[in-house]
């Protein structure tokens, strides 16, 4: 499917980097403008695949394939399919928001700040488009240093601790992923496609069942830390609390999605039998995450910690959804990834706005903001309702699909997962009540200034998609159909044909999905 000779995806990755150059060459005062121009242009580019994919077909589009390190079987291979289709615009959109949020809140080392964000954006887009395992890994790790600096340089008091903890957890997981990739390449060498890191060629053979479990664990380690699944989640609250508002937006909005994306991109198609073998264990972790995250969120005094633990809870729900392996669960999981990016991103922007005004994030020191800032209050309530999954807004669509899949999978699993609705409402409503209403408990009482133009614009842009997805979910779900069909191809069909190593190129497996992928490469 290389109909488009135009290197759209490379351009999308390079544009933020060009923005870096512009920021570096310009004056610090102009840095936000350059960053905004670069992210806005990138956002427009990420929308192109969305438009071009109306035909609904499971293969990769906008494929670019060039040799990179031929002697090691590494190539520069990019492409978009239904799985990454919506994650790209989400990344582009939230990056624009991140720049706008930090428009005049960053005062020192302005250039470095925006350069870090632009490098981060390029790496995030790279992760969602890479079809070569090593390329994926390079982008995956390239995100670490900018995020390390964003948390560590522009964060709050305990920033160094949080930055180091973030990077150690992530690298510990991802180095295991690297070992997994190399072992996978050796397997590929002994099963036909040759020593290669190309994902599309890995899909040409079936991984022997005896190896699947170990490889799955190596891969899953990296993704579970990133999601984050309980008990690998402890870096998240620290990172969120210390990061600046824009950093939290991208962390929650995009970086956490990469864990789930990795599971869907690598684990599901490569290790189907291991996925079914580990489903009970992962389900338990997911459900524990839902309940434990929600309970912890309820006890938090710090607003950012509260939203961070609510992320743990929501990501647990997404994992439960995708591991149901049914079309509804996968669809719900992917939709919920977008929803969580929007609603949690919005909540972090709002919390940042509160901190800017009141210089505190403690629930015990807030209150009564609705009185002096009605516009702020309206946006706060909408974002809160979206996060709580109220019908009419986006959160409901994803949660409904996931719970549907959960009940189909095992009724008690659905019931346990459904506690997210109740518990979510509990901590979100408590938060809203204590922040917006009651009486002002802050040390320096007084009215806060309401949202002005910039903040109104940002929040309107965040809230609009919530309503659109909530009211017209088919915009998303229809386009996800092919990707989901592809992923939900049951493991059985793949095992029906055992691949003879030499003739791997000619096997017909499991319907059309494979052929599309082949055509894509």
């Amino acid at each position, binding site marked *: 499917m290389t109909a488009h000779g135009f290197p759209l995806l490379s351009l999308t990755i390079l544009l933020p980097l060009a923005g870096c150059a512009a920021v570096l060459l310009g004056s610090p005062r102009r840095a936000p403008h350059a960053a905004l121009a670069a992210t806005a242009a990138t956002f427009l580019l990420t929308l192109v695949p969305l438009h071009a994919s109306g035909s609904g077909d499971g293969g990769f589009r906008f494929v670019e394939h060039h*040799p*990179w*390190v*031929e*002697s*090691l079987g590494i190539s520069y291979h990019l492409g978009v399919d239904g799985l990454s289709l919506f994650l790209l615009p989400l990344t582009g959109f939230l990056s624009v928001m991140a720049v706008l949020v930090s428009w005049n809140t960053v005062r020192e*080392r302005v250039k*470095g700040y925006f350069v870090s964000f632009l490098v981060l954006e390029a790496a995030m887009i790279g992760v969602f488009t890479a079809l070569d395992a*090593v390329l994926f*890994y*390079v982008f995956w*790790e*390239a995100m*670490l*240093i900018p995020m*390390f*600096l964003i948390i*560590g*340089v522009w964060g709050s008091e305990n*920033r*160094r601790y949080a*930055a*180091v903890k973030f*990077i*150690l957890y992530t*690298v*510990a997981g991802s*180095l*295991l992923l*690297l*070992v997994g990739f*190399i*072992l996978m*390449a*050796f397997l590929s060498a002994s099963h036909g496609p040759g020593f290669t890191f190309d994902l599309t060629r890995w899909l040409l053979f079936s991984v022997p069942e005896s190896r699947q479990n170990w490889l799955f664990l190596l891969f899953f380690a990296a993704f579970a830390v990133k999601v984050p699944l309980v008990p690998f989640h402890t870096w998240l609250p620290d990172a969120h609390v210390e990061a600046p508002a824009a950093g939290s937006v991208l962390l929650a909005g995009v970086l956490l999605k990469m864990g789930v994306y990795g599971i869907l991109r690598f684990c599901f198609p490569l290790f189907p039998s291991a996925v079914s073998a580990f489903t009970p264990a992962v389900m338990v972790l997911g459900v524990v995450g839902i309940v434990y995250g929600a309970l912890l969120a309820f006890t938090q005094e710090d607003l950012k910690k509260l939203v961070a633990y609510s992320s743990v809870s929501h990501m647990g729900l997404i994992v439960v959804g995708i591991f149901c392996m049914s079309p509804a669960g996968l669809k719900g999981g992917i939709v919920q990834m977008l929803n969580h990016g929007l609603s949690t991103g919005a909540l972090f922007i709002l919390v940042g706005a509160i901190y800017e005004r009141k210089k505190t994030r403690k629930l015990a020191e807030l209150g009564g903001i609705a009185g002096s800032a009605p516009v702020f209050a309206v946006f706060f309530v909408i974002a809160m309702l979206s996060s709580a999954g109220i019908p009419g807004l986006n959160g409901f669509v994803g949660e409904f699909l996931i719970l549907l899949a959960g009940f189909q999978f095992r009724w008690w699993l659905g019931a346990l997962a459904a506690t997210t609705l109740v518990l979510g409402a509990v901590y979100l409503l408590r938060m809203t009540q204590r922040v917006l209403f009651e009486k002002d408990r802050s040390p320096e009482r007084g009215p806060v200034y309401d949202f002005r133009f910039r903040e109104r614009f940002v929040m309107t842009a965040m809230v609009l998609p919530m309503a659109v997805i909530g009211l017209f979910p088919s915009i998303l779900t229809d386009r996800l159909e092919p990707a989901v069909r592809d992923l939900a191809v049951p493991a059985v069909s793949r095992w029906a044909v055992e691949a003879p190593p030499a003739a791997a190129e000619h096997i017909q497996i499991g319907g059309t999905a494979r052929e599309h992928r082949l055509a894509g490469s």
Partner: protein
Amino acid sequence: MNIALPEVDLATLLPEGILLTTAAAILFLRGARANGTALAAAMAAAAVSLLLSLFPYPGAAGGTFDGLVGKDAAALLFLVLTDLAALAAMALSRQETGGDENGETYYGLVLFALLGMHVMVFARDLLVIFLGMEILALPLYVLAGFDRGRKEGMEGSVKYFLLGGFSSALFLLGTALYYGAAGTTGMGGLSASPAAPVLLAAGLALVVAALGFKITAVPFHMWAPDVYEGAPLGVAALLSAAPKAAAFAVLLRIGLAVPGAGTDFLPWACAVMAGASMAVGNLAALRQENLVRMLAYSGVAQGGYMLMGLPALAGDGSPALAFYLLVYILMNLGAFAVAVTVAGGKGGSLKIGDLSGLASRRPLVAFAMAVFMVSLAGLPPTGGFFAKFYMFKAALGEGWLFLVLLAVGMTVVSLFYYLRVVAVMYMTEDKGGRAVPAGAPLAGGLAALLALATLATGILPSWIFQGIGRVFP
């Protein structure tokens, strides 16, 4: 009477001839400008030697002296590596030799040491290798204590001398046992099945131990932190990279011999040394406050990662080792170059805390240091990533999974101290700091060059892989 004279082809030894003549000539330099002239001449000689090995002239490769000397493609590659390290280390030494009335001898000694490494790399006989090791060691004993004003320098020099003498003795004893088993001191004795495998094994074990001193492999690493700390920074930089390259060339030559009775313990011995070096080096580096001592322990750990290539020689071990060495030279000498630019005469007693706020004082230098630290930690998009990646691939291909898992765990540990440097530079305010030294333009320029090279090997490593691939088909 008919005496068969060995066939001598001096053209093969042209680079060594240039090094020797220049080194000897430098010792006779006198006058006010002797220091600068010596630096220029020594760097020119090393650069010519590097180019002659990188772009071999007709006759550059070949054997001579009855097979005692043999330059093949692999030897030329390792000569390039040692020359590169020596060249960079000399560029870092300008500051430290400036005030010394004997500054010019410094460069002569470095060239003699480089000559010794050349001999180690191309020799095909254990006795000639021993000659090379001694030619390397003697100048280094002097250089380690070149800074006569510093007590640590004297201490380090004596320590280095004692342990160096000890390792020479081990090597000689090993050679004797090897001779007893194989009937020759030539490397060719390895391929024949030995009459006394136990004797051969004992000899080789001693030889490998002596080489372990040169690559600071655990348990032969004790001297490194003290010597590095006391030596001038340029010498520490040289010690951290160049002898490692030469010793690995010898180990590679021993390791590539046909495995059989008496040599089959080598892969395991190397694997154990690799694991121990990674563990001890990384864990000890965690506690260092002194930048040079931290780099010394980090060098021990990096030597451990490189040693992983030796058990995997049947697969991709040798190209992986060569690539790792190249990247290591770039990033480690880069880190020393940054140390020289910020040390301002403080030399080996530079603390990590002295870098605080460097990002606001000297953003470019701080950025270069960040690149080196990230690369040493093995994160993309730097050469350090591909070095580790290739090494892991080579080791996994030969089934050393547990060694790779240990390396992975230790890499996570290493992030603590490498990123601590980045955090100190970027995340602490400049507490008055030290006045920016007048500048070390040569070291600063070198740091910039090496940072670019480190990034280039991480983004476009393909052509280097191809070049190394031609050497080790």
